[in-house]
């Protein structure tokens, strides 16, 4: 039996009469870059919200590294090694770019509570934030207010905050949305680099099929809150049901 990094059983979430996620059971393997695709309203973002603790499932369980985390709040899941970015941009707009990246570095070291220490003296966290600044290519903008960055740079920054907690499993909700080709390459490059160097396992929700098929080692197709298909890119490409319901003539 494979030991999954994250495993769900019978995960279900309804909003009134709408069933957003209808009994999803899946296992995510360490080191496998996975993409979740599907039409709008298929339940992709709801699924990620359930996995990262933003929503509590009606029924079903979530296990991370063998531990039941179904009722663990988001911040507790982050401490255990989960992280995410959001579909709608979520950064700290009034802080500088550097401070945005300092926050996950401080949190990872359990330094948030230090009330009388000077920020400049947090050498470990500062060094980590600066390394990230260079990796996401925002070094030149380090002292700029984050809200003043361009859209693409803000998305890069959000990715930086998400990986700044040094997660083992990181969910990225449409990381390349609204990006130009250069920014997109930075995102993909960073994902590849961190997958290799820090053994971060990425799971992305993405609409851009070029990104999905060039990057993902495994693709999960969702429709109406259920997993329609699950397999390698080649398998998904050949799947008749997927072609008919979602991919159409795209692939």
């Amino acid at each position, binding site marked *: 039996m494979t030991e999954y990094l994250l495993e769900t059983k019978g995960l279900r979430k309804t909003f009134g009469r709408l069933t957003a996620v209808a009994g999803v059971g899946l296992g995510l393997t360490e080191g496998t870059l996975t993409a979740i695709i599907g039409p709008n309203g298929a339940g992709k973002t709801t699924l990620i919200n359930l996995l*990262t603790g*933003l929503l509590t499932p009606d029924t079903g369980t979530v296990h991370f590294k063998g531990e039941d985390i179904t009722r663990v*709040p*988001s*911040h507790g899941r*982050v*401490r255990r090694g989960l*992280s*995410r970015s*959001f579909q709608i941009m*979520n*950064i*700290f*707009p*009034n*802080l*500088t770019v550097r*401070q945005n990246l*300092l*926050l*996950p570095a*401080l*949190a*990872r070291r359990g*330094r*948030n*509570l*230090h*009330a*009388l*220490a*000077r*920020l*400049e003296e*947090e050498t470990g*966290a500062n060094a980590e934030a600066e390394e990230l600044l260079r990796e996401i290519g925002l070094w030149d903008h*380090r*002292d700029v*207010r984050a809200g003043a960055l361009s859209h693409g740079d803000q998305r890069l920054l*959000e990715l930086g*905050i*998400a990986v*700044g*907690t040094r997660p083992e499993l990181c969910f990225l909700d449409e990381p390349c949305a609204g990006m130009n080709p250069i920014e997109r390459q930075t995102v993909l490059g960073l994902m590849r680099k961190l997958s290799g160097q820090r053994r971060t396992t990425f799971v992305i929700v993405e609409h851009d099929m070029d990104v999905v098929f060039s990057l993902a080692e495994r693709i999960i197709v969702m429709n109406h809150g259920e997993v329609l298909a699950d397999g390698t890119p080649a398998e998904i490409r050949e799947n008749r049901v997927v072609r008919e319901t979602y991919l159409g003539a795209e692939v």
Partner: protein
Amino acid sequence: MDVGPVASAGRPRILTPGRSAIGGLILALLLLPLVGGQYAQYVAIQVLILSLFALGFNILFGYTGLLSFGQAGFYAVGAYGCAKLLLLKPSLLFGVIGGTLLAGAAALVLGVLCIRHTRIYFSMLTLAFGMMIFSMALKWRDFTGGDDGLVGIPRAPLEIPGLVSVSMASMGRYYYFVLVVSLLAIGIAYRLVHSPLGLTFQGIRDSEGRMAFTGVSVRAYRLIAFVIAGLYAGLAGALLPALENTVTPPVAHWTTSADPVLATLLGGIQAFAGPIVGAFLFFMIKDIIVRFTEYWLIWLGIIVVVLVMGFRGGVVSLATARWRALRPGREAP
């Protein structure tokens, strides 16, 4: 927005314009009793008290993004607590520290209930709890003296057992006591907002969701901010009984909660010094307008509305912007 430290190029200058201004201000405050009379000292104490009250409020509002309309509740716990303790044992430090800690404890208990909510729901809850404390001050006659309040509170000497005992009988001495306590409290607040904890508060203000996903329990930190604001409100309140020799229910009224809000908006929520400058302006404006009309609050209200609509950053940001404009080609720190 106060975005904290920014890398400075070159050798750090010891005597920056900012530091010179602060040094000059402290010197002026130290010399005040020599040049000003009893009234000037009395007003200066009131300004310092409101500064502390507003400074704590702004840690909650400007830095953490939580607007409380019930800070007078903790101000009153500090004031009544200190008064009760002074009546019990005439020792100034005992009363002031005790009153402050009582307010902190009250903030901890009520905070657990309040911080579960945000935005307007949080504000309404704090208003409700603040008015509950006001009702207690009014109705719990045996303990608070009801309408009449607590009277005959001694301006007890500053005693450190086995070390010193300094009489506080004169206004001048009490002024120096309040000044030292205020400078200490302001210094601590300054360190705090520039610390990892301060940055965490600002992160929560900007995005709770993102903050939770750095691995921080947002509720726990909201509670910490609430207790800090409660402690500062309590300290401000605890400095009151020895000044007035009496404490009455209006200190707990919601209109008292509005004072730090107005002072902070006047000075500016975006700068650390905003609430302090605002507290000073609050009393200056009051002092000037009161000579012409008793409806001074209306005029203060108009000034705040104009400031908020025209220049959100308040007087401090306005002044900083002017300063930068006057010195082109120079990046302000």
